[in-house]
C-alpha cells in the first residue's frame, strides 16, 4: 500500500455536494422531531396554560387595577411562554455534550455556523409549534381576526424564539459545568421573562425592575405582539430591539462562540 496517487474509487460516497440549506434544515428537523416524540408534553402544557389563564388571570385582573388587563395578560402569557420554551434547546445541547452526542454531531460535514443556525431554527420552530394551541385559545377568546395582525404577531414571536434559542445555545457552549449551567439558564429565563412587561405593565412592576424591564427582549416581543394584535399597529422601536437581540445572539453567537466550540464537556 504505497502511493498517494491511488484514487478513491467511485464507490465511496460523493459528499462534496450535500447542499448547505439541506444540512441546516436537517439539523433543525432533528430538534423539531423530538417534540413529536413526546406529544403529551404539548397537551399537558396547553392544559396547564388554560387553567392558569382562567383561574389565575381572572383572579389577578380583579387585583390589578388596569383596564383591559386580562387581554394584556393573555397576550403576554403567550409571549412569555415562547421565551421559556425556547430556552429548552440549551439544555438539550448541554445534555448532548455530556452524553458525547455533540462530538458526533460536530464530526458531520456541517459548519459550526450552519450548526448553530440549524439548531436555533429547529428550536424556534419547535417553540412556535408548541404555542400554537395557546395562541389559538387567546385569539379566540379575544377575537383577534385581522390576518395581517396575526401574521405580524407570529413573526414577532418567531423572532423572539429564534433569539432566545440562540442565547440559550450560546450559554450551553460557553458554560461548561453542569451545575453552573442549570443555574445560569434558570436565572436567565427568569430575568428575561419576569423582568419584562409581558405579564404586567411597567407601572405595575416593582420599582427596582422598572429601569431594566423595557430592554428585555421579551418586552420588545410582547409590546410588538400586543400592538399588532390589540392596537393593530406596528411598534417599530421595539421591533428594532427584537431584531437587534436576534442578530446579537444568532450572528455573534454563531461566529464567535462556535469558532471556539469543541466537543466534550471539558474540552
Amino acid at each position: 500500500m504505497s502511493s498517494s496517487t491511488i484514487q478513491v474509487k467511485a464507490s465511496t460516497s460523493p459528499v462534496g455536494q450535500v447542499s448547505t440549506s439541506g444540512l441546516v434544515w436537517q439539523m433543525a428537523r432533528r430538534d423539531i422531531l423530538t417534540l413529536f416524540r413526546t406529544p403529551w408534553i404539548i397537551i399537558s402544557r396547553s392544559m396547564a396554560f388554560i387553567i392558569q389563564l382562567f383561574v389565575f388571570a381572572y383572579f389577578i385582573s380583579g387585583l390589578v387595577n388596569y383596564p383591559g388587563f386580562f387581554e394584556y395578560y393573555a397576550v403576554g402569557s403567550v409571549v412569555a411562554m415562547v421565551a421559556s420554551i425556547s430556552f429548552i434547546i440549551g439544555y438539550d445541547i448541554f445534555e448532548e455534550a455530556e452524553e458525547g452526542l455533540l462530538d458526533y454531531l460536530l464530526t458531520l460535514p456541517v459548519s459550526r455556523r450552519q450548526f448553530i443556525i440549524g439548531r436555533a431554527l429547529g428550536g424556534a420552530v419547535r417553540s412556535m409549534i408548541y404555542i400554537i394551541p395557546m395562541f389559538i385559545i387567546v385569539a379566540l377568546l379575544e377575537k383577534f381576526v385581522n390576518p395581517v395582525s396575526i401574521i405580524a404577531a407570529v413573526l414577532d414571536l418567531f423572532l423572539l424564539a429564534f433569539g432566545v434559542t440562540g442565547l440559550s445555545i450560546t450559554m450551553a457552549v460557553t458554560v461548561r459545568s453542569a451545575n453552573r449551567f442549570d443555574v445560569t439558564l434558570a436565572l436567565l429565563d427568569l430575568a428575561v421573562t419576569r423582568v419584562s412587561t409581558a405579564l404586567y405593565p411597567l407601572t405595575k412592576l416593582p420599582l427596582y425592575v422598572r429601569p431594566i424591564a423595557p430592554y428585555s427582549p421579551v418586552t420588545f416581543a410582547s409590546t410588538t405582539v400586543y400592538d399588532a394584535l390589540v392596537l393593530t399597529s406596528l411598534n417599530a422601536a421595539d421591533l428594532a430591539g427584537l431584531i437587534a437581540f436576534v442578530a446579537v445572539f444568532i450572528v455573534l453567537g454563531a461566529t464567535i462562540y462556535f469558532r471556539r466550540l469543541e466537543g466534550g464537556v471539558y474540552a
Partner: protein
Amino acid sequence: MISFEKAGKRFGTLDAVKDFTLEIRDQEILGLLGPNGAGKTTLMLMMGTVYRPTSGAISVNGLDVVKHPNDVRKLIGIAFQDPRVDGILGAFDVLNWHLKMTTTLGKEERAERVEQVLRAVDLWDARKKRTWLMSGGMRKKVEDCKVLAQRPSIAVFDEPTAFLDVPSRLLMWKMIRELRDQGSTVIVATNMMDEAERLSERVAIVNRGKLVAIDSPEKLKSTTKGGEVLELTVGVGQQFPRELLAEFSEVQDVTQTENKVSVYLTSGRLLLPKIVETLTNRGVKIDSVHLKEVTLEDVFLNYTGQSLD
C-alpha cells in the same frame, strides 16, 4: 494522505498528545495501538475536527484541519469508541440520518445501504429497536455501521470490536477490510494486539501521547531485540556442540541449562529445519523443539515498558 506534524493536544496541564509526527497513506489500514490513556482517541478527534490541536499541524489530503475544517469533515467518517447514537432512535433511523448528513445518496439508495449493513451484522430484525434498549455489543455494531454504510474516503474506527463477541469481531474485521478494498483509507485505534496485528498493514504504537514505533507488524517483530527463541531439549548428559551453530548468522546466542538449550535468533522460522538437521547429523539426540516467536506484545512491551493484559 493524512499527515500529523508535531501535533499536540494539551488539556489543562496534561499533554494528551505530544510532538506527534506521522503520515498515513491512502488506502492503507493503519492500526493505532496503545494502552489506555495513550492518546489514541484524542488523535482521531483532532483529525476529525472535534478537538483543536494546541500545537503542530494536521492535514487531511492537503487540507489543514484548523483552516479548512468544513472540507475535512466531508472526507471523514468516525465510529466512536463508545457509541454516539440518538438513544430514542432505532438502528435504521440512526444510520439513515447519518447517511442523509454525510452523503448525497437518495432515499432509496440510503435504505438499500442501511439494509445491507444491518443484515450483514445481523441487526436487521432489530432495526426498529431503540438503541438505548440495545445491548452494548449491538449498539457498538450500529456505531461501526455508520461508517461502513457511509463509505467515507477516510474511515476511522475507535476500538471497533470492543464489546463484540468472537464471530462478530471476525466479521467486523472482514467488513473493515472490504471498506478499504472499496477505496477508503482506514484508521483503527485499538488496545488489542490481535486486532492490530490481523487488521492493519502498519501499526503505530502510541504511548503517553507520543509515537514510539511505526511499521508493519512483521517488521516491528523482527526488529525487536531478542528476536525469537528456539528451545531444544536434548538427551540427558549430552554435550551440546555450540560452535556448530555459530555458522548461522541469524544465531545471536546459545545458552544451556542442564538438558535445555535456548538458541536466540533474529528470525527462526526458516532456520529451524536446518538447525535440527545439522545437530542430528552430528549425532545430537533432540527430544523436543519449540520455537517461541516474538509477539506484537513483546514489541509493545519493549517500546512502552508495559504489558497490555
